[in-house]
């Protein structure tokens, strides 16, 4: 049963310079003991979505315009700050990308974990300290008694991320939101951290929401995948289906363009032309249409809804499942010329990117 469910969530940031529609109709469910990956590039709305499951987007400027965020059946969007505090940390916990900026540099690691525990439970000082030491031991930190008395700068990057995980798990949350948990880490350390998360997930029967841009990591870690583009969910399915038979041109092209270690040199890489759109000035119709090699004139007319293209596999594209499968096959074979493919053609290396769109949101 789903412990966390997000239904038709819409949120926007009302800034002085304009309205950023960061989340447009996101739906997903997180089950205990399972990992849901939300994949997207910068500005795709994946982090805003993650933060909204804890109501951590600053309000204002963030306004939730529609939808529900149900944790054990209760809607977070209807809760007051007091009730939310009961859920943050104990019901749903979060770990962030950069463990150095998420820890307080002038307090010991142990006291920071004690703080997290004491917020939710009435414990004696000694018991709270013991819990902190236990939490550090659980995430594989050697000499936890001694390490609890040390400061963040005495830990390496990977060890700091373990501390963050220990802190997040100290109150035994049912859902853990991990926002790019290993982006700041080296690959050998990344492998350690991902293995630790997988192990803890099974041990505590937690649901994990993994936010990442790394497709290969998703393929290894996730049970279910939600692909986001320009604040919209564009593909949703079980992980193996997404990688075996992607149903959205964005996902296909991304898989085809991302450098992959299991592909030899020369297999490179049909770049996707252009860059992700500016959320303040979205293109008409499908947000991916200006970069899509399969785009048709109709694509500018309306935003395609997320709809079933195969059993348990949804995608937001106006092409039929047959047309999508044909395109995927051609892409995989490197021959890209079908009747459906009257797009702007393959991008040449000298193809100019679309107009400047400022920084990413």
């Amino acid at each position, binding site marked *: 049963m789903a412990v966390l469910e997000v239904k038709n969530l819409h949120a926007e940031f009302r800034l002085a310079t304009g309205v950023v529609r960061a989340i447009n109709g996101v739906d997903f469910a997180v089950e205990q003991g399972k990992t849901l990956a939300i994949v997207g590039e910068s500005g795709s709305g994946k982090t805003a979505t993650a933060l909204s499951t804890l109501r951590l987007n600053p309000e204002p400027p963030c306004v939730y315009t529609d939808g529900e965020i149900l944790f054990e059946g209760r809607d977070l969007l209807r809760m007051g700050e007091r009730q939310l505090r009961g859920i943050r940390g104990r019901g749903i916990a979060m770990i962030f990308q950069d463990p150095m900026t998420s820890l307080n540099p002038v307090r010991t690691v142990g006291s920071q974990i004690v703080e997290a525990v004491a917020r939710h439970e009435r414990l004696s000082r000694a018991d709270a300290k013991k819990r902190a030491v236990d939490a550090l031991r659980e995430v594989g930190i050697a000499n936890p008694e001694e390490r609890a008395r040390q400061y963040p700068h005495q830990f390496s990057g990977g060890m700091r991320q373990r501390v963050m995980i220990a802190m997040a798990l100290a109150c035994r949350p049912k859902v853990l939101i991990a926002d790019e948990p290993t982006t700041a880490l080296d*690959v*050998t350390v990344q492998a350690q951290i991902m293995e630790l998360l997988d192990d803890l997930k099974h041990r505590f029967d937690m649901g994990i929401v993994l936010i990442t841009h790394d497709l290969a990591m998703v393929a290894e870690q996730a049970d279910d995948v939600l692909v986001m583009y320009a604040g919209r969910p564009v593909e949703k399915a079980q992980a193996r289906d997404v990688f075996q038979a992607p149903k959205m041109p964005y996902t296909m092209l*991304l898989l085809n363009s991302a450098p992959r*270690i299991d592909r030899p040199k020369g297999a490179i*890489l049909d770049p*996707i032309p252009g860059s992700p759109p500016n959320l303040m000035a979205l293109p008409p119709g499908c947000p991916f249409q200006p970069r899509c090699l399969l785009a048709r004139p109709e694509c500018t007319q309306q935003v395609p809804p997320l709809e079933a293209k195969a059993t348990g596999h949804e995608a937001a594209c106006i092409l039929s499942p047959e047309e999508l499968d044909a395109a995927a096959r051609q892409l995989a074979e490197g021959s890209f010329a079908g009747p459906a493919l009257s797009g702007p053609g393959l991008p040449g*290396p000298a193809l100019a990117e679309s107009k400047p769109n400022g*920084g990413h949101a």
Partner: protein
Amino acid sequence: MTIAIDGADAAATASARTPLLALRNVTKQFPGQGGASPLPVLAVDDVSLDIAPGETLGLVGESGCGKTTLTRVILQLIEASSGSITFDGQELTSLSRRQLLAVRKELQVVLQDPYASLNPRMRVREILAEPLVTHHMLPRGRGQKAALREKIGALLSSVGLDPSVQDRYPHEFSGGQRQRIGIARALALEPRLVICDEPVSALDVSVQAQILHLLRTLQSERSLSYLFVSHDLSVIRQIADRVAVMYLGQIVEIAETEELFRNPRHPYTQALLSAVPVVDSAERERRRIKLAGDPPSPANPPSGCRFRTRCPLAQDACAQERPELFDQGAPGHAAACFFPVSGIAGLSEATAGAA
């Protein structure tokens, strides 16, 4: 330390051509900081490398392994503590500032962060004109302005940007476009070697391929050599002709790209390769080699082999003596290990046997 790519071996490989850049036993030591008795940090330790004309040498390693320090030493932005760096036969370490200026024309750099490496208060035109002005590459007198405009327009088109953007400021561009401007700046002086220090790691996945594609196209058009530094092995595999793997300041393995990825010999290379997640589920069947802990501090490196403290196959001998880069059979393939095993599978089997 001898390098394996000398003598007879070299004759058999592509690097038989006179190298454009040659490092011999380059070492960089930084004085220690803080504490009662600060230890010096050996950031680059006895590195020897060659880059042939038109070649891309990939340099991989984790953070703190000394790869960025090595690029700074090559560019003569910091002085090497010892060793020799020759570019096109000319020794760089003993050049005067004036002589160095002439060499820098041929030796340019593309930096990692396209947001930090472009001056936000300069227009694209000014950014691209700066190297040309510094190196007196512009015609004097009348017509200079027009010539400059034309030159900059041509540079922008060569990196896939519209020549009309030269009056804009960096903030008007996306990350990928900024990196194109950074590449145009590096190319303005028509260098022969470009050092690319993590040029795509700050970019979105969908934009990375564009920049890699561009770097390749420029290379074949202008017969450039690249030293391509990255921590991302999948990027390295797509762009490099040869790859050098660095650990704690030392080169631990070097080989042609496909050879290195198919037949890694050093346990560190094997562990590094096995740690990268892969999309293909069939590939994932291979065993992941777990490395315990973090790399040791370069201020206090282990004796003998630098990797022995994390190596699943370490033996007593590894603590006694530093392994040299031994020849591994294939042309140009060398690894600094006393007990190399074959491939990732070899290491997992050997580890399972030892356990």
